[in-house]
């Protein structure tokens, strides 16, 4: 496998193409412009379609349409643009349309700042649109992880017939790192994946009402609606049982455990190593999927030994803190180490926060 040096955004786009993504629609917004730009060059080479939509709203709806035909499809944006897409994302979730999107997130709320931030955590994990739906949300901490997660995201989306979100902060999106790309899926495999969706896809069917392609983001029948909600809820429960991904770093004997995701986790990991070199018992729990959230890993810590949890996020106020609290259940104090507005977490800030607690 060849190692290549790539920018996060471009690596995400290439990984998607290799996973069989053959449709992308997006709209310019910093700091994710390299994703649509890369797709605009790359997709025509593999017989795919790139469209620069007239808005984020149009783009997500083009993806809703393309994915309704069974084509692996993707969009991307950054924080305020993701808000605009929330209607279409909700429709995809309601109609059980598999698609993948990336949020290369920036400072907020509002137009915020174009620099990296982690201020869309609650939006991503709790309410990405109306109606209480959920998605699997992956939070890469390296460009390599962004690649691997994007590649796998299409399989999860198809498995569940549900949108999947790559929650990628602006640091991961804009930094360059060496990555190993996954093998490109062949045309036959991509065609087989699409064929597998023929029964429900909106591609035209022989005239039979019961077997037609009917993409329904709602229903006149309240009974049908509730049944759909119940099925979705059961799927969300299954994720919590089977699909949680978490990295636990030097927590076995830790007295202080940091919880951080994405770029913050990477900085926190450096801090763990610094303190461990001095014999200090510091550890890290890194949610890799922020939904489903790794409650169990935090819940099962030995609270006879752990004196403090330190929540590290690039968001003020803290957002992931709510999930951490649900798992800690008041068994030890939870402190925070935060920055926001486009300021990137500094190692020194985390070092100081830890120093005050040990």
């Amino acid at each position, binding site marked *: 496998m060849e190692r290549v040096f790539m920018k996060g955004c471009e690596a995400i786009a290439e990984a998607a193409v290799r996973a069989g993504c*053959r*449709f992308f*629609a997006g709209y310019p917004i910093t700091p994710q412009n390299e994703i649509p730009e890369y797709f605009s060059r790359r997709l025509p080479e593999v017989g795919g*379609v790139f*469209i620069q*939509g*007239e*808005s984020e*709203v*149009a*783009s997500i*709806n*083009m*993806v*809703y*349409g*393309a*994915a*309704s*035909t069974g*084509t692996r*499809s993707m969009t991307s944006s950054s924080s305020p643009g993701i808000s605009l897409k929330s*209607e*279409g994302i909700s*429709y995809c979730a309601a*109609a059980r349309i598999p698609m993948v999107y990336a949020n290369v997130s920036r400072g907020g709320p509002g137009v915020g700042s174009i620099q990296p931030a982690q201020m869309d955590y609650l939006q991503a994990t709790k309410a990405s649109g109306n109606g209480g739906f959920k998605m699997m949300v992956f939070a890469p901490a390296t460009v390599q992880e962004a690649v691997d997660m994007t590649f796998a995201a299409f399989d999860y989306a198809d498995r569940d017939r549900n949108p999947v979100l790559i929650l990628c902060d602006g640091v991961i999106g804009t930094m360059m790192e060496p990555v190993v790309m996954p093998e490109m899926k062949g045309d036959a495999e991509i065609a087989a994946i699409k064929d597998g969706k023929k029964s429900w896809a*909106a*591609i*035209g*069917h*022989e*005239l039979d*009402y019961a077997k*037609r*392609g*009917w*993409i*329904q*983001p*709602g229903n*006149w029948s309240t009974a049908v609606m509730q049944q759909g909600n119940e099925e979705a809820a059961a799927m969300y429960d299954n994720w919590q049982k089977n699909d949680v991904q978490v990295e636990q770093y030097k927590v076995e004997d830790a007295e202080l455990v940091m919880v951080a995701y994405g770029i913050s986790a990477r900085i926190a990991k450096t801090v763990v190593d610094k303190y461990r070199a001095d014999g200090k018992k510091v550890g890290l729990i890194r949610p890799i999927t922020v939904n489903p959230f790794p409650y169990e890993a935090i819940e099962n810590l030995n609270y006879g030994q752990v004196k403090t949890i330190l929540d590290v996020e690039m968001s003020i106020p803290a957002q992931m803190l709510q999930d951490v609290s649900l798992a800690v259940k008041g068994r030890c104090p939870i402190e925070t180490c935060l920055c926001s507005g486009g300021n990137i977490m500094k190692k020194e800030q985390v070092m100081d926060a830890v120093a005050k607690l040990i």
Partner: protein
Amino acid sequence: MEKIYARTKGLRPDVVSGFCPGCMHSTVIKLIGEVLEEMNQMDNAVAVLGIGCCGLHMEYMSYDNVTAPHGRACAVATGIKRANSKSLVYTYQGDGDFASIGLGESVSAANRGENITVIFINNGIYGMTGGQMAPTTLLGMKASTAPKGRIAEEHGYPMHMCEILNQLTAPYYLERTSCNTPQNVLKTRKAIKKAFQNQLDGKGFSMVEIVTSCPTNWGLDTMKSLDYLNEKMLTEYPLGVIRDNG
């Protein structure tokens, strides 16, 4: 005896449409079914339904369809058509959907010359939500959000979508028809067929704007609403071919 006028297979045989008495949505949906049947395209068609009364026929029609978010039908249809170019893809939208909340998507799809067909129902009012003012509401016409009627100084003027799209270079075919008489129903049928054929021939964006009545929200019985359609609506929205590049 030979059946010379039959109910189209585009409609489920034993289902009654959910539209109000005299509503010409039903007429147009019937015509689309007839045309698809005639063109042997029923198993190749994907309808993209707008929000509002447009969605009322999803269980009345018998073939593939997708419900788009309000106003986004042209964007959804763009995605479907580009991902699967062999499908015959049309949007079915009302005036609120196509000309108000979806204006950006509508004009942009037309401007790209997307190879899709738009069936645009213009009855000058919001139907399902209860008679609110639309961009196409006539001056003086009462609406539940314009109780004194549409006033130019406050609400602006009725929007003429065919003429607006006619300012763009890309659209291939734009025609305005009505269903107020059997003759015009047949003309509408012909226009829909032509618009679908354009798409199959890869000609790009076609739209048929169909001026219809809404007896319920106009507050008129079916016969008086026909008169209002003839006298008022068709004066503001004259019928005819606005553009035909064929």
